[in-house]
Each structure stands twice: as structure tokens, then as C-alpha cells.
């Protein structure tokens, strides 16, 4: 071999060894001491039929990071008054797009952990994605903060590094049934039968299961069980099935573009039950509500936040101001705000643990109650399995394009309009 080439090779090997020793190699840790940064990965559906929701969730995490990394004395949330955590560490986000697909989400979780070397993950909006992505995180002993996925199954796995902020569809189902009972008592509504429409996914199937359980416990008969494949070209047979069975009430777990198609198809088929209550779905998306106009009115759903909750959560306004700069003026919704809370609570835990050992931080997350002015409950407390036991939501109704608080009554700011106004009388 040429002498000069041999010497060059020796230099390359030497430099490679130096790089590895300094921590610039492929196995470099996520916590880079020299730069004092903590890499956190986000996985949301940034493309696909629920992309609007995913993009807002990502913007919410970015907003929280901006609050954590910089001094914001005007913001009344923990860590806002200081810059960074652990004496100057800044959080750096690495984003990934799940497309709303479990396999893609899982692959992205693996990439973020193995190639990007993130210290923890936040995501993934779709329960179907959160499930495999959090398995990847658990195996790698990385904390997975789940803001808005609502499938109760996620926190029934007894995982050590998984933490979920949002209420589950199990608790929401019980709340919805309580609303029906309240209407029967208060308005003599005569609601006896229930229909369930849901997308055929982890989220939808589990929501339907919990709905049927809660309905049976509450004495309601489920007369229509309508699952459908997300991204369908039409929802005619789904709506015709509901119409044929004519339930008094319908619980919906329909996301994104499918939600608008469902509403429009019901209008075409001239079908409306007395009441429709939605899980975390297209109903909570303020953009869809605006685009559907009057057709979106009188539908109901649970929500952890909407701009109409401002009087209950005064700390949100200053944070929302930053959020709006990232979303073109769109405010927080019940899902995106949970992702911001997930980031803020994780940062608080790191600060309290005074360590970047995932085991220590996970332990601290489990053992403490966290102040959370961006949560409806005001506090966050994780119980076994990682569920936030203090997660709360309010049942709202869209009236004139505004989310009005309806139930529980003590938190209401408007009277329920019941039954839903027929399509031709709007």
C-alpha cells in the first residue's frame, strides 16, 4: 500500500477514536454534557387524515419547551421563571411523523431512540401509535409521556416508564352515561337506547368497548354498534345502520376528516338522534367546527380545554399566546394542551430528581403530585400504570360555533340545547 495512503488511514482511525471518546459518535448519549442539552423526541401524526390535530400537539410541546428553556416571568406555570433545568440544561426537540400509522410510529420511536439518541419520548395522539411506540420506549428504558391518547388499555399494561395525562375513554364513557342519566332525570329526556360509531382502530375499538360497558352498567341498551375503517370514501352504510336502529343517543369516536364526512352524511340522510356525545375526536378540533359551520352545532363531547374555559384556567392565556404564534392563531384544544402539560411535568420531574437517570425520574414522577395550571384539575398525580388520576374533563356542547360548558352543572356556563335541533331548523 502507498505510504501516504497508509498514513492517511492511520489519521482517520485516530480521529474516529477521538470523536468516539468525545461522544460525537453514533452511540453518543441524548444528554450531551458539553452542550448541556436534553434531546426529547416527539411522535405525532403530522401527515394523514388527523394531521391538523398532530401538528397542534407538536406545536404545544414546542410551546412548553420555549417556556422551559427561556425566562418568562409573565407566565404562571412552574419553571417559567428560570431558563432551562438542572442548572442550565436546555431541551431540544427531535420531531417524527407517525402518519397516524402504528408501524410507522413504532419505527420512528426506534429511530429516535437508537439513531437520534433521545432521552425521552412524547406522543403520539393516536392510541394505536402510542401503544407500540411506548413498548419500544419501555424496552429501551426511556420515559414515554403520553398527552392525549385516551385508550384505557394503555395504562392497563403496568409499564414502568409510561405516563398518560389525559382522561381515559373508560372514565369518559362513565361521564357520558352520567350525562344521559342527568338528562333523563332533569329533562325527562326518555333516553333508553344507545348507538356507538367508531373508527376501527385501537382508540375507536376501545372507546366502543368502554361505551358498551358503561351503558350496560347505567341501564342503557346498545342498539347499534357501528365500526368503520378510517379514511373511508363514504360513510353511507354506517349512517344508514344508525338510522335503521334509531338510537336515542349516540357516542362517537370519529377522528379528523372522517368526522366531517360523518356529520355531512347524517345531514344528507336527515338523521339525528336526541343527543350525540364524542370522545376526543373531530368534535374537539376547532378548525373542523369552524369549517362545518352550523352543521357542527349541538354536538357534544368531552374536553380538557377550550378557549371558553379561560375563566377556570387563568394561567393558560400567556402560554396560549406563544402557542398561537406557531399555529397561525389557532388556540389550544383539549388534546394539544395535554401534550404541553406532558412536557412541563416531565421537565419538573427532571428538575426535582436532580438527575437524568430515567429510573430516578420515573420514580419521582410516580411519587409526587405535580402543580399543573394548564390542567383542568390543576394538579397531576400518576398512579400505577402511569395514569393521571387527577385528569378531568368537562362535557361541552357546540352552540353557535362556541364550546359551551354543560356538565358537570357546577362548572356549566350555558344550558344544554336538548334534543339536538333538526337539520332543517338551524
Amino acid at each position, binding site marked *: 500500500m502507498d505510504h501516504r495512503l497508509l498514513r492517511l488511514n492511520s489519521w482517520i482511525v485516530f480521529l474516529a477514536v477521538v470523536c468516539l471518546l468525545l461522544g460525537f459518535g453514533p452511540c453518543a448519549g441524548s444528554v450531551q454534557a458539553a452542550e448541556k442539552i436534553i434531546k426529547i423526541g416527539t411522535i405525532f401524526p*403530522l*401527515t*394523514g*387524515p388527523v*394531521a*391538523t390535530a398532530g*401538528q397542534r400537539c407538536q406545536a404545544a410541546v414546542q410551546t412548553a419547551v420555549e417556556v422551559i428553556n427561556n425566562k418568562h416571568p409573565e407566565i404562571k406555570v412552574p419553571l417559567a421563571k428560570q431558563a432551562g433545568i438542572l442548572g442550565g440544561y436546555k431541551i431540544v426537540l427531535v420531531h417524527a411523523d407517525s402518519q397516524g400509522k402504528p408501524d410507522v410510529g413504532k419505527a420512528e420511536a426506534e429511530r429516535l431512540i437508537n439513531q437520534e439518541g433521545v432521552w425521552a419520548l412524547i406522543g403520539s395522539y393516536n392510541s394505536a401509535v402510542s401503544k407500540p411506540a411506548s413498548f419500544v420506549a419501555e424496552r429501551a428504558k426511556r420515559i414515554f409521556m403520553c398527552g392525549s391518547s385516551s385508550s384505557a388499555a394503555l395504562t392497563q399494561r403496568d409499564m414502568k416508564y409510561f405516563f398518560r395525562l389525559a382522561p381515559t375513554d373508560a372514565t369518559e364513557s362513565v361521564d357520558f352515561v352520567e350525562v344521559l342519566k342527568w338528562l333523563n332525570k332533569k329533562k325527562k329526556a326518555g333516553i333508553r337506547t344507545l348507538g356507538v360509531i367508531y373508527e*376501527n382502530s385501537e382508540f375507536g375499538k376501545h372507546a366502543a368497548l368502554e361505551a358498551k360497558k358503561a351503558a350496560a352498567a347505567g341501564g342503557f341498551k346498545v342498539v347499534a354498534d*357501528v*365500526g*368503520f*375503517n378510517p*379514511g*373511508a*370514501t*363514504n*360513510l*353511507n*352504510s*354506517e349512517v*344508514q*345502520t344508525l338510522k*335503521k336502529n334509531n338510537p336515542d343517543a349516540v357516542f362517537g369516536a370519529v377522528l*379528523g*376528516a372522517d368526522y*366531517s*364526512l360523518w356529520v*355531512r352524511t347524517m*345531514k*344528507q*340522510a*336527515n338523521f339525528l338522534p336526541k343527543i350525540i356525545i364524542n370522545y376526543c375526536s373531530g368534535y374537539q378540533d376547532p*378548525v*373542523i367546527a369552524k*369549517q*362545518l*359551520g352550523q*352543521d357542527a352545532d349541538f354536538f357534544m363531547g368531552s374536553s380538557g380545554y377550550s378557549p371558553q374555559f379561560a375563566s377556570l384556567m387563568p394561567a393558560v392565556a400567556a402560554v396560549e399566546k406563544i402557542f398561537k404564534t406557531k399555529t397561525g392563531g389557532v388556540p389550544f384544544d383539549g388534546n394539544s394542551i395535554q401534550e404541553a402539560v406532558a412536557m412541563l411535568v416531565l421537565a419538573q420531574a427532571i428538575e426535582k430528581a436532580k438527575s437524568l437517570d430515567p429510573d430516578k425520574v420515573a420514580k419521582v414522577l410516580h411519587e409526587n403530585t405535580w402543580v399543573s395550571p394548564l390542567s383542568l384539575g390543576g394538579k397531576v398525580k400518576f398512579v400505577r400504570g402511569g395514569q393521571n388520576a387527577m385528569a378531568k374533563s368537562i362535557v361541552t356542547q357546540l352552540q353557535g360555533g362556541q364550546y359551551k360548558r354543560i356538565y358537570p352543572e357546577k362548572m356549566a356556563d350555558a344550558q344544554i340545547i336538548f334534543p339536538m335541533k333538526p*337539520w332543517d331548523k338551524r
Partner: protein
Amino acid sequence: MENFVQVLIDGMLSGMIYALVAAGLCLIWGVMDVINFAHGEYLMIAMYVSYWLGFLAGVDPVISMIASGVFIFILGALTYKLIIHYTIGKPPLAALLATFGLAMFLKNICLNRFSPNFLILSDTWLGGKTFQLGGLIIPAPQLAAGILSLLVVGLVYLLINSTRFGWAVQATAMDREAAELMGINTERIYILIFGIGGACVGIAGGIMPSYLAVHPEVGSLFGLIAFICVAMGGFGSIPGAFIAGILVGVVEAIAGFYIAPVFKYIAVFGLYLAVVFLRPRGLFGW
């Protein structure tokens, strides 16, 4: 009985849309033996054209579908001139992969320009309107799309079977070299066929924003169903694609209503497999 008729009507109306989307694909496939993987993306772009004309200029989809048709005609002709032209005479896989690349390109352009957000056109002339026949409800946007489908597919059929241009197309489809020896400008035929195929799906996409949200993924399932219609109907048979489209729509609606909504696409793809096994050349193929 009323339920059955309602489901049948819904299925036929959906099927006519599938048929219109499939007709364009069938034409290109039949004449040029090119599988256009970007067909679903043509539909998506037509929907965007119609949406933006409605949103920015207040033009209703009933009018803007003409602009969508013209736009996709031009896009189709350009696709041939700039891409497919260079794959003629090469292995068939070349054209297939080229159109696959085009599909990805178009989808990502729309993702980049319009974001993945879904867009809904409000207050259209047909949006939410219905006709009632006794207890039966016929949605106006789907009815208009169905009538349009009949008209366009009928016109294309007449164009191919009853005009000098159509005979030239048939001659080109049978034997390109012989057609050229007879003085037919086959290059021009190919450009026009790609354009007309595009226009069919462009018109279908143009009217769809009356009832369907627009987003970069919207064309994917329609494109897939169009392939099934063409394969089921028989490659190159426009009446075959039309009937297969209606059959797909009706099977989808009946299976969705009488078995379970989640079963509707299983039934459609099951039917497709059955046809492929029992009659590989398709229902009307030769």
C-alpha cells in the same frame, strides 16, 4: 324493503363516482398498456383546484369541475410528454415506476404547499341538499356526480367507438406500428388519451368538494378502487369499468349495511379476488 332501496341508491351513486374515476384509468391502460399509479393523485389535485376556486373566487364546484377537468387534461398530457414518452419501448415496469414516482411527487407537492390539513368547502350549491322520493333520500351532490359520470363515460365511449379519432385510438391500441403506417400520428393520440383520461378523473374530483374534505391522502383509496374496477371490468373496456364501478359501489353499500360497516371493503376486495380467479380477463374483457 325501503332500507334496501335506499342502500341500493347510495351504492349506485357511490359506484358511479368510482366508475368515472376508473374510466380515465381504463382508457390509458387500454390504449397504452400503462398503469397510471398517479391516478388517485390526479383526483386529489382536481379536488384542490375546485376547492381553491371555491374558496378564493367563490366559484361553485358545479362550475369549477370544468376547470378541474381542463387542468387535469393538461397535467395528463404533460405527464405523457415529460415522463411516459421516455418509457415507451422500455420494459412495462419503467412506466409503472415512473407514475409511482409522479404520484409521490404530486402528493408531496400538495403536502408542502397546502399542508396535510383537510379543507372543507362550505355553502356550496349542492352541499347538504337532498331530494326526497317518498321515504327515500337522494343526496344532491352524489346525484349530480352520478349523472355527470353517466354523461362523461357515455361521451368517452362514443368518442372511442363512433368517431374517426376513436378509430385511430383503437388502431393505435391494437398495433402502434401499423397505425403509424396508416398515417395516424400515434404520439398525438397518446398525448390526447392521457389528457382525456386525466380529464375524466379531473371532472370527478372537481365536483367532490361539495361533500368530501380535501387533503393530500384523499385520492389514495379512490385510486385503488379505480384499479379494481378496471381489472374487474376487463382491461380497456370502458363499459366494463363503468359496470364494475357500480357493482363495487353496490357491493360496498349492501355489505356495509347488511353485514357490518367494517366489512364493506373486505367484500369489495373479496369480489375482486373472486373475479380474478374465476374470470382473469375481467367481466367484459376479451
